[in-house]
């Protein structure tokens, strides 16, 4: 089945480790995909003001591109892009007056009525590939690596675009278990990392991220796995600031779910781009012989 693929801005630069590992996994799983032609930034956040339709133009234009490709499903990897595109899609499906205004305004594009289905890759793995089929493709099971799955906000809230139950999700757990990892459940797995407050109130974002990591570590996690480049910045990249600022801070390996998938599928280490993660990530995986099995 062919799907269209929406990457998003950060996946072409800082988060190449999210994109490259996912695209290699698409291939290994036989997912036929095509990247959208002339895609643009989705806006990263969904506009929450009732009279603000101009910020819907960016995500809707991407949805129109997906419709033009003729694939019914558009897969995203970044959870913020997923949220923004899926909510814009819901608006175009259900809010007739706003839909008409947006379609009239974008008169250079064909009218759009929410025909495309926006799907996050984690949901795609569960619903289209299936855990059983995925398990049969695992070449290098994760050998009981203790993994804390971090959902963050945008995969679970609001409810109308949630990929699982907003307060007690299980999808990420199922994913990690399918790959042979041991899941470390922790209450902060659905707590916000501070998101864009990395820009506005970086100290507040640092503290909430530190609390999330401390929660995972105190329950015995070897590593945190996530889906969003902004979470990766707050929880991964900013650990250097935490190590300087907070007593007892530990260096916690953080990786994208697609990197975990690529390892388990036995794909080339090159597609994982571990040079973009904290160096502790590759060190951990090497020490557990999880990089030995992958094709060099």
């Amino acid at each position: 089945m062919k799907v269209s693929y929406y990457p998003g801005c950060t996946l072409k630069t800082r988060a190449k480790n999210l994109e490259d590992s996912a695209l290699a996994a698409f291939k290994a799983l036989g997912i036929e995909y095509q990247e959208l032609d002339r895609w643009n930034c989705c806006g990263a956040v969904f506009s929450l003001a009732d009279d603000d339709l101009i910020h819907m133009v960016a995500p809707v234009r991407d949805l129109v591109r997906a419709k033009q490709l003729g694939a019914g499903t558009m897969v995203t990897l970044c959870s913020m892009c997923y949220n923004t595109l899926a909510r814009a899609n819901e608006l175009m499906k259900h809010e007739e007056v706003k839909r008409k205004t947006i379609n009239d305004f974008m008169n250079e594009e064909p009218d759009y009525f929410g025909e495309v289905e926006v799907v996050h890759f984690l949901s795609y793995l569960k619903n289209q590939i299936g855990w059983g089929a995925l398990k049969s493709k695992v070449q290098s099971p994760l050998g009981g690596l203790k993994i804390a799955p971090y959902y963050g906000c945008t995969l679970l809230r609001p409810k109308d675009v949630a990929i699982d139950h907003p307060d007690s999700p299980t999808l990420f757990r199922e994913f990690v278990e399918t790959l042979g990892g041991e899941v470390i459940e922790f209450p902060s797995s659905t707590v916000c990392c501070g998101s864009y407050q990395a820009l506005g109130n970086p100290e507040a974002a640092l503290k909430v991220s530190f609390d999330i990591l401390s929660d995972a570590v105190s329950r015995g996690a070897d590593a945190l796995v996530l889906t969003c480049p902004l979470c990766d910045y707050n929880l991964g990249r900013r650990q250097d600031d935490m190590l300087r600022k907070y007593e007892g801070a530990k260096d916690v390996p953080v990786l994208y779910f697609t990197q975990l998938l690529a390892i388990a599928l036995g794909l080339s280490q090159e597609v994982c781009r571990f040079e973009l993660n904290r160096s502790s990530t590759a060190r951990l995986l090497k020490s557990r012989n999880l990089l030995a099995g992958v094709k060099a």
Partner: protein
Amino acid sequence: MALVISRRTSDTKFHDRVSELSGQEFMKCFQCGTCSGSCPMGDHIDTFPRKIMALLQLGRMEELSELNTPWVCASCHTCMVRCPRGIDITKVMEALRLTRLRQNVNYVEPSNMQPEEIIDLPQIALVSGFRKMTS
């Protein structure tokens, strides 16, 4: 601190403006405090969302315009999914931000940011941050 409430202290225009921008009926709030207890930024905001809802009900524009809460809110939607009255508090926070931003008053000023402050930030942080905190 006690609040003096009278017709004079209630700015109904402001109340209506926030209601219109957010599309929310905050008169429905019955002050249970679930939003305040759920807020991940609880340690960093100066006023909890429950109190903000009360101030909105009373039309206390003066107090509301000085709060840091809408600017520390990360739009995580936890309060929204848990509100037993079905109020989208995240939208109320956005409306409070917009009452300032639409007067062309930025909360973060891109031109004042030092290169070393932003060099490390990924695009996703810059786009989302500027969308929420600049006009």
